[in-house]
């Protein structure tokens, strides 16, 4: 296995060397055969002739030996790709249309799916995200948010300490971060509990994350953690740990940088700076809050930590599935004082009763939390459906275009089938062309899709807040791209209806030449060939005024009508006598890039075609046409 792999790789990397080996082996075989025949009393000429006859087509033998290795598959693929590229180059209009249609069709889907995936489906880049649950009790009395007060959060945290850690976060605030000697830079901040990062199970990119010791300011001020992208953007590096700064006029110390890709737990909204909840006590950091209002002991100017009437924290817990029921019961019990307090702001009646009897419920937070995520789900789904429809319509149109194009190439396929190409070979060629188009279109789609998803994100952002999602290419997005490319190839290739194609029934046709040939593998098919060595038996071709034979497969290999070694073609046109001088010209008609050098009139006198009007027909009985072994 390994030996075969190495030998194949070597043959692929040094094809000339491998071909020379095959050629040498074949020559050695021929010489041994000639020697043997000389010993048996033949003349040298007879011996050579007999040996050549015995070997048959040397090109075919070369091809068979080459095909014995796995590398011939790779070689065929490359050959198919080259042919496909040539075909597409010859139809630039079709190629450009198809590539653009695919780039737009797949790109639009990738763009929307990237957004949909990042916003709705991608799990948070944290440990065991499926255990994260948003803890919700009653909505705050005026703003209707799932806020709790700081004392309520502490009770929730204590209720399940040990088996279901609870963390809290505030809303976002806008501030300015000022480094020593530098102008203040805008910075969005979020206050979080000291266990925010540890509950999430996030590891820092640099320094450390917040911990219990950060409940109070240290020597350099309040400990803060920067978002990776923010640190890079502001400082060009994440190596900023230990630096001091001033945030909203409060001294802070950068203790660490969150890992790349970690944007917090609120989908779309990533703070630049995380700082402890306790920093609110400085009075310099505001955040969205709700309260019972005047008359309930609410003092906004004083620290919120001790005030049960100010609701400003969202609570998230890490709770294993089998602990959820017990945890919910304990949290519901722990929240009773707060529910009673909240009920004070609700008029007597059914609504008050509802608040008083509220139970805690959990919402999965594995893929993030936040209002934007909930609000954007339907629009994103609709956009996705629209993009899907664009893709399907594009594919169907391309399928039709392809069908029309293949219909126009009927003649080419007929020629190839006459040359001995199997239906599978033709289908493979079409598939390769489609695959090539799709890969180019797909690659373009990845680029345009990524750019478009960024544009969509900007479009969905508000002036105040640019949405921030992790838009890096992910496996599901890649899988969708590949899946769509595969679907495009299927639609592309299903359209042609290759199955219905039949080889031409008659070799001759009115006023124009026909081709007779073979592929190396097909047995019993007429073949026109002359060995490259020159010493071999020249074989046949004939007819019309343009009969021609090709020296080896090279001309056709490079030509438009075939790509298999051993194949050759005769092309004749018009009426009249055999004109050897014109053979090169005729062969040049077949050979796309000057394969006329591979043509020879040498076999004309031996040629056995019968001339029927303008057509040429090679018969199996022809002495110069060998049957496959």
């Amino acid at each position: 296995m390994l030996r075969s792999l190495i030998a194949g790789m070597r043959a692929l990397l040094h094809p000339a060397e491998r071909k020379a080996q095959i050629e040498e082996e074949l020559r050695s075989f021929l010489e041994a055969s000639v020697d043997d025949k000389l010993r048996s009393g033949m003349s040298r000429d007879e011996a050579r002739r007999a040996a050549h006859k015995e070997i048959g087509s040397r090109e075919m033998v070369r091809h068979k030996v080459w095909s014995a290795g796995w590398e011939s598959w790779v070689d065929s693929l490359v050959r198919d790709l080259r042919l496909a590229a040539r075909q597409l180059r010859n139809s630039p209009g079709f190629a450009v249309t198809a590539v653009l249609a695919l780039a737009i069709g797949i790109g639009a889907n990738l763009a929307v799916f990237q957004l949909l995936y990042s916003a709705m489906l991608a799990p948070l880049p944290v440990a065991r995200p499926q255990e994260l649950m948003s803890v919700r009790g009653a909505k705050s009395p005026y703003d209707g948010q799932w806020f709790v007060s700081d004392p309520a959060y502490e009770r929730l945290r204590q209720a399940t300490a040990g088996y279901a850690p609870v963390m809290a976060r505030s809303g976002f605030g806008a501030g300015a971060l000022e480094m020593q000697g530098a102008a203040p830079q805008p910075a969005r901040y979020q206050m979080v509990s000291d266990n925010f990062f540890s509950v999430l199970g996030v590891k820092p990119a640099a320094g450390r994350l917040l911990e219990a010791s950060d409940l109070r300011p240290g020597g350099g001020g309040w400990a803060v953690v920067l978002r990776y992208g923010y640190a890079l953007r502001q400082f060009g590096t994440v190596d900023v740990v230990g630096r001091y700064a001033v945030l909203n006029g409060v001294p802070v110390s950068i203790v660490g940088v969150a890992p790349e890709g970690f944007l917090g737990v609120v989908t779309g909204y990533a703070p630049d700076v995380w700082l402890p909840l306790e920093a609110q006590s400085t009075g310099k950091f505001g955040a969205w809050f709700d309260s019972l209002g005047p008359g309930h002991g609410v003092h906004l100017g004083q620290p919120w930590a001790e005030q049960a009437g100010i609701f400003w924290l969202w609570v998230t817990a890490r709770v294993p599935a089998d602990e959820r029921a017990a945890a919910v019961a304990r949290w519901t019990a722990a929240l009773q004082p707060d529910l009673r307090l909240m009920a004070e702001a609700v008029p007597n009646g059914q609504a008050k009763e509802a608040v008083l009897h509220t139970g805690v419920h959990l919402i999965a937070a594995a893929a993030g939390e936040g209002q934007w995520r909930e609000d954007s789900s339907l629009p994103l789904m609709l956009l996705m459906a629209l993009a899907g429809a664009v893709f399907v319509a594009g594919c169907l149109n391309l399928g039709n275009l392809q069908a029309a194009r293949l219909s126009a190439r009927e003649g080419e396929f007929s020629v190839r089938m006459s040359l001995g190409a199997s239906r599978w070979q033709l289908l493979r060629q079409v598939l390769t062309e489609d695959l090539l188009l799709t890969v180019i279109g797909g690659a373009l789609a990845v680029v345009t899709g990524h750019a478009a998803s960024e544009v969509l994100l900007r479009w969905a952002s508000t002036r105040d807040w640019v949405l921030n999602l992790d838009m890096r290419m992910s496996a599901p997005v890649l899988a969708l791209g590949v899946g769509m490319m595969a679907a495009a190839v299927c639609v592309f290739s299903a359209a042609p209806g290759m199955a219905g194609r039949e080889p031409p029934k008659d070799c001759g046709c009115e006023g124009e030449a026909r081709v007779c040939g073979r592929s190396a593998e097909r047995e019993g098919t007429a073949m026109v060939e002359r060995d490259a060595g020159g010493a071999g038996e020249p074989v046949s071709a004939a007819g019309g005024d343009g009969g021609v034979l090709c020296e080896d497969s090279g001309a056709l290999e490079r030509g438009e009508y075939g790509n298999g070694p051993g194949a050759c073609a005769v092309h004749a046109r018009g009426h009249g006598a055999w004109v050897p001088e014109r053979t090169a010209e005729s062969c040049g008609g077949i050979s796309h890039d000057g394969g006329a050098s591979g043509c020879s009139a040498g076999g004309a006198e031996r040629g056995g075609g019968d001339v029927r009007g303008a057509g040429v027909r090679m018969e199996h009985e022809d002495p110069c046409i060998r049957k496959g072994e």
Partner: protein
Amino acid sequence: MGAESRDLVQGTLEMLVLKTLALESMHGYGIALRIEQVSKGVFRINPGSLLPALSRLERSGRIRGEWRASENNRRARYYTLTAAGRRALEQECRQWDRQVAAISRILEA
């Protein structure tokens, strides 16, 4: 091609090559000639079949090829059976015997 087929039974070429090489190292033409002679002309191996078979056998490690001077002082690639080739030959021979015996029993039944 005559009325009687000179085609090998499918899948037996490699076994015959291994068997031929079990006696001594040979070059490609020598192998073809030996098979033709031993089979009394029944089997004639075309290089289009033989050379790919030799290539496959060499890659699978059953034979080893090296360029040497032939009896006529020409450069020729000589093939030698390897230990793996000998084992493969024994196995293929056993399998062949079983198949031939089974076919004979069917034909005689």
